[in-house]
C-alpha cells in the first residue's frame, strides 16, 4: 500500500489547509454540506491527521469527500487557521490521480464535469457560455433561458456585444491562438494528464458496469448514468 499521507503532503493545499485540528467542530457547524448530506468535515480532518493509511484509502474511495461545495466558509471560522475544504480538494485530486474516484457514485461524476466544463475550456475558451447551457439539461433555468438562446444575436447586441464574433465584448469568440495557449498550458502543467486520467479510469469503470462509453461527447450511457444517478442514501437521516 502506498503512503497516502505522504502523497497528500505533496499538495500545498494540504500543507496550507491542515495545521493541527483540535476537533472543535466549528467547521461542521458552519458547513452547508453538513446540513444537507451525511457529512462531517471535522471527522475528515481528524481522520487524515491521524495518518492511518488504510482509513485514508477508504476515504479516497468513499462518497464522503465529494459532498463539500467548496464554499470555503470553514476557512473563515476555524480557530486554528485550518481549511477543511482545502484538505478535501487535496483528497479529491489524489483520488482522481489514483483512479479511486470511480469507486463511488459521487466520485464517478468527475467524468461528467470533465466532459462538460472541462472541455468547454478548450472548445470555447470559457468554463461556461450561454450556448453550452442547454435547456434540456437545465430545466431550472426556466422559459427565459430558452428565449435568450433562441434570440441570442439580438439579446447580446442590445447588451453591448456580438456573440461568438472576434473582438472585445460579452461572449466574444476567443481567438484560436488564445485557445491554443490554454491547451499548451494544460499540457505543460499536468492538466492534460489529469484529464486523461479521468478518461482512462472512467472508461474502465464503464466496462465494469456494462455501460456504453464513447471517447467524445455526452451522448453515451456512462455519461448519462454518472450525470443523473442518485441512490438517495447520501442525506442526513
Amino acid at each position: 500500500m502506498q503512503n497516502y499521507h505522504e502523497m497528500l503532503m505533496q499538495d500545498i493545499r494540504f500543507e496550507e489547509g491542515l495545521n493541527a485540528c483540535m476537533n472543535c467542530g466549528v467547521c461542521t457547524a458552519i458547513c452547508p454540506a453538513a446540513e444537507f448530506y451525511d457529512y462531517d468535515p471535522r471527522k475528515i480532518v481528524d481522520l487524515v491527521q491521524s495518518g492511518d493509511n488504510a482509513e485514508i484509502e477508504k476515504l479516497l474511495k468513499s462518497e464522503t469527500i465529494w459532498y463539500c461545495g467548496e464554499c470555503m466558509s470553514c476557512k473563515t471560522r476555524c480557530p486554528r487557521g485550518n481549511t477543511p475544504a482545502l484538505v478535501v480538494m487535496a483528497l479529491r485530486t489524489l483520488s482522481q490521480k489514483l483512479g479511486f474516484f470511480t469507486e463511488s457514485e459521487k466520485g464517478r461524476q468527475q467524468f461528467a464535469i470533465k466532459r462538460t466544463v472541462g472541455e468547454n475550456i478548450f472548445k470555447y475558451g470559457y468554463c461556461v457560455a450561454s450556448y453550452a447551457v442547454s435547456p434540456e439539461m437545465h430545466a431550472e433555468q426556466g422559459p427565459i433561458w430558452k428565449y435568450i438562446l433562441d434570440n441570442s444575436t439580438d439579446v447580446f447586441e442590445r447588451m453591448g456585444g456580438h456573440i461568438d464574433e472576434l473582438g472585445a465584448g460579452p461572449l466574444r469568440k476567443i481567438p484560436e491562438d488564445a485557445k491554443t495557449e490554454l491547451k499548451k498550458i494544460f499540457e505543460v502543467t499536468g492538466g492534460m494528464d489529469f484529464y486523461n486520467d479521468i478518461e482512462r479510469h472512467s472508461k474502465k469503470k464503464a466496462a465494469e458496469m456494462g455501460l456504453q462509453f464513447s471517447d467524445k461527447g455526452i451522448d453515451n450511457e456512462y455519461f448519462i448514468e454518472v450525470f443523473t444517478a442518485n441512490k438517495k442514501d447520501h442525506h442526513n437521516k
Partner: protein
Amino acid sequence: MQQDGKKRIWSDYQKEIADDHFFYVRSCIRQSFFPGSEQFFLHFMRDILGKDVYENPSHTTCTGIGYHGDVVPLATIMTVVARHFALMKESGYKNIAISCVTSFGIYTEIIETWKHFPEELEKTREYLYKATGREFDVPENMAHTSDIIYKFRNEIAEKAKYKLINKETGEPLNVVEHIGCHYSKMFPKYGVGGAEFPNVLGGMIDSWGGKVIDYPERRHCCGFGFRQYLVQANRGYSLSNTVKKFESMKPFKPDFVLTNCPGCNMFMDKWQYTMKEMEGTVYGENGESIPILTYEELAGLVLGINPWDLGLQFHMVQSEPLLKKIGIEYDPDNKFKTKDGRQMPVPQNLINA
C-alpha cells in the same frame, strides 16, 4: 486618542481600490447570464466617469469553475491566471478589475499562495514561459468590480435620478445584500469590510437611500457548491441551500436582493422559479417573487438608465413591481425590442410579469 485607536482597528477592514486605468476581466457567468451588467459597468466607468478601462479580447476563462469542480489542477489554474497577468503587463496596466467573485477568489488564493510558497511563483513563471513565451507581473491593485462601484457610490448618489425609497410610503426600501462566499471568506483583507463586516454592497445601499436587512442566514452560501449544481444528480443540495436563505429572509419582507457574485445572482433568480414550479412557494409579498439585482443593474437604475438596456427583462423574476415602488419610469413597449428598435418575440410565463 480614542478616535486614533478606532481608526487603527478599522483600518484592517479598509481596502485600497485604484482610481483609474483598469485591466478589465469579464466573468463567464456574468457575460452569459447578465451581459447588460458588464455593459453598464463599462459605460459608467468610461462615459460617465471618464476612466480608462481596457478589455483584451485574448483574455479567456480563468478555469475557476473547473478548478472548484476539481478537474483542473492547481498548477494549471495558476498558469492560466499568470497568462492573464501577462496580457495585463503587455497592455501596460497594473490595476486589475475582476467581474466575477469565483475569479476574484481564485486570484486572491493564487497571489497568497505565491507569497507563502515563493517556489510556486517561480514554477508558474517557468510553466507560462514554456507554454506561451510570456512573462508576467503580479498586479499592484486588485479590485472586484463591485469594489469600484463602491468606491464611486457617492458620485452615483450625487448624480442619482432615483433613491431606494418607496414612493408611496416615503420609507427606505428593505434590501437583502448577498456578498458571495469567495469574495472575502477566504482572504478577508481583499474585501471591503473583510469577512466579518463586508460592506461592499451595504455601502451602496446606504448611500442610495435604502435599508440593509440583517437576517439569520445573511452569510449562508447561495447553494452553488460547484459540482453540487454542475451535476444534475446533486442539484438538491443547491436548491435546498437557496430555500434556507429565502425562508430566513422572508419575514423581513425584502423589496429586492442585491448580489455581488454573478453565480449567486443567477441561482437566487432561477431557483425562485424552480421553487414556485415545484411547490408553489413564493418569497415576496402579494404573491410575488423577489427581484434579484446585480450591483451594476442597481447603480444603473439609480442613475436613471433604461431598465431594458440593463437587461432586467432577461431575468426569470421580472422587476416591474420594484420599478413601480421606486417610481422608475419605463416603457413597457421597449422591453423586448432589438438595439435598432425591431420588435422581438415576447417570452411567456416569466415571474412577476
